[in-house]
């Protein structure tokens, strides 16, 4: 290992940083947005809502993200109706396909978490809302969801790290994010350790920044006593 190549690798790997951040943040936000209706549908009383949501999360959580990404990027282009639709300019772009695949995937995992949290809210709260004459909509927006999301802050912080790691799969559809540029640089220089270690340090740094941000959010908005202890603090 030579320090020379480390110095050369750093700017190369940094070129991928922007795309990694774009994919991570866009997929994370879109995933969270989709997870709420999906999670609510998982808990709905109507089987017409419950079943499709259950099938969706089962299929997505049962298959690899890479397969899902390839279905969206390579598979959809095979269908003439898709190629002629107004969505084609989006589905033709590997970057958008990456974001769509990762967010659909993240939404399925997150929906289960949201549904689980909804299930844990004591029944008495619903009864209290009804007896106070609070409408169904406000029961959800003013009573249930604020506590569910405050409780889920640690899970959401964990999810953004998972999405960050998933963003590396975009390199499989030609996106030159951190892992993509690192692999291309390795092929040219034949110095895999220097390049991939540099890339790894960058991922850890981004992950650390996200974790720090969520710690702040938790301290500000989290429900005290629900935070799971950090692994280092246990045992």
């Amino acid at each position, binding site marked *: 290992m030579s320090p020379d190549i480390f110095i050369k690798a750093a700017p190369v790997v940094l070129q991928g940083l922007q795309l990694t951040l774009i994919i991570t943040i866009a997929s994370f936000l879109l995933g969270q947005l989709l997870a709420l209706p999906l999670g609510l549908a998982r808990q709905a009383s109507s089987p017409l809502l419950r079943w499709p949501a259950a099938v969706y999360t*089962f*299929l997505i*959580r*049962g*298959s*690899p*993200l*890479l*397969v*899902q990404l*390839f*279905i969206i990027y*390579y*598979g*959809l*282009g*095979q*269908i003439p109706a898709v190629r002629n639709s107004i969505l084609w300019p989006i589905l033709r772009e590997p970057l958008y396909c990456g974001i769509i695949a990762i967010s659909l995937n993240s939404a399925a995992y997150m929906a289960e978490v949201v549904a689980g949290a909804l299930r844990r809210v004591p029944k008495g709260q619903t009864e209290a809302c009804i007896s106070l004459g609070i409408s169904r909509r406000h029961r959800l927006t003013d009573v249930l969801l604020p506590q569910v999301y405050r409780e889920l802050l640690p899970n959401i912080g964990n999810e953004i*790290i998972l999405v*960050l*790691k*998933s*963003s*590396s*799969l975009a*390199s*499989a559809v030609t996106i030159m994010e951190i*892992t993509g540029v*690192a*692999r291309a640089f*390795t092929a040219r220089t*034949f*110095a*895999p*350790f220097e390049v*991939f*270690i540099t*890339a*790894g340090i960058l*991922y*850890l740094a981004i*992950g*650390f920044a996200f974790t720090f941000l969520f710690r702040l959010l938790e301290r500000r908005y989290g429900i005290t006593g629900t935070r799971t202890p950090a*692994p*280092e603090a*246990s*045992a």
Partner: protein
Amino acid sequence: MSVILTYLPHLLQGLVVTLQVAAGSFVIGLLIAVLAVFGWNFGPRPLRWFISAYVTIVRGLPELLIIFLVFYGGTVLLSGAFGTYVEVNALTAGICALSVVSGAYLTEILRGALLTVPQGQWEAATSLGLSRMTAFRDVVLPQMLSYAVPGLGNQWLVILKESALVSIIGLEELMRKGVVAAGATHSPMTFYLTVGALYVAITGVSTLIIGAAERRAARGR
């Protein structure tokens, strides 16, 4: 439909390799995790730091990056050792990389399970004259594993799905067979859906088995 049937034997061959990669990485990862938890409990302070660092770093890195590091890094090391270009076998590289990954997650799972084993078990075992080591091996470890069954099952599902990433370094497992068939027939949708369905089938069967294992492990508690 007939296209799928033509390629089905290939896909099933790939499925076998997928199961090999997943099972290999799971077993080696579990071995790493048991040793890590053992070291965590009995080892000196620097070893505990090392184990903590291992778990934290691996959990923060994309699996694909670790696979690339092991594959390309291993190739460079072997080529250096033999003085000529030697490419690491993709199966070995894949199992090595995913073992390191699952080892880190499994260490976390086992460490959590260890905390659920009541302290009284340690006390009872040592008061009966067992050394701390024997108490760990014969009394605490089996209980720890039984508490860990749900976590272990979940990690098995994760590793099954992650094994698809090894297709990117060219291992002829299920995903890669799908890519080849999709390319040869120009029908990617057909084959990626088939491959996806096969993954859903193995994770589905695994989930049923894990459920049975969980009920069995919880028996008598």
